[in-house]
């Protein structure tokens, strides 16, 4: 590889933006979405992704004793799926996000850089000058 690639995650927000579409519109947007995903994979810019089912649970509190029905946010903001990208920089990731076929219908795409290591571990190194974790969990 000539240049360093970075990993980004696209989070697709909104689980009901498609509910008002006609069957023709829905067919078009779903077909475009699949074609977009396949093209990004062929170009080596996307290594995977999944749609998520609409339901889920939220686990929190000591020993995870608190369980609530999910997903986390109301349906307009809930995460409906994701792509995992390998790109040059954030501008390229944003440009890909701007091609999302759901944007015209209200889907929102969150673009997030993947961390080399988790925030806690990164702060540990800052504080102590050495890494608590030798082999890579990130």
């Amino acid at each position: 590889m000539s240049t360093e690639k970075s990993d980004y995650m696209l989070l697709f927000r909104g689980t009901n933006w498609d509910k008002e579409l006609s069957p023709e519109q829905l067919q078009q947007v779903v077909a475009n979405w699949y074609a977009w995903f396949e093209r990004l994979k062929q170009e080596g810019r996307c290594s995977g992704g999944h749609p998520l089912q609409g339901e889920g649970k939220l686990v929190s509190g000591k020993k995870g004793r608190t369980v609530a029905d999910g997903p986390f946010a109301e349906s307009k903001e809930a995460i409906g799926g994701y792509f995992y990208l390998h790109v040059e920089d954030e501008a390229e990731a944003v440009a890909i996000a701007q091609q999302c076929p759901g944007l015209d219908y209200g889907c929102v795409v969150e673009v997030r850089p993947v961390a080399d290591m988790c925030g806690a571990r990164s702060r540990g190194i800052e504080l102590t000058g050495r890494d608590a974790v030798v082999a890579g969990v990130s």
Partner: protein
Amino acid sequence: MNPTKTDYLLLFRSDNWYDELPVEELRGVIEQNKAWFERLLAQGQAKAAQGLVRQGATVSQKRGSVTDGPFVESKEAIGGFLLLAADSFEEAMDVARSFPSLRYGTVVEVRPVAQECPSWVRLRELTEGPLASATV
């Protein structure tokens, strides 16, 4: 690969809880998280996991509208994810409950991965009618 397993996406939501911790406590929880993750890897449950930087951009409605930063306020922002292969939803929930950083306020969202895009399922129902979809 066990074909009976289903994928679940665990989304970790929290603020920067680690900013307030003393070094020794921080080191302890990092080691616990590492051991937790390595056990899941060794058991073949974890398929992928990454932390996310608390920056980025959000692209919305009208094409070209880009704003800086994660979508929601920092307390609820997604700080990382884990793709898990589990035999059941309950098994995925057990993994979520065992996450060491829960005691610092992290919320773990457990979401089943869809075998088929839900929009596609809805389209089939619309175009094939209830009789056809009932036979699936």
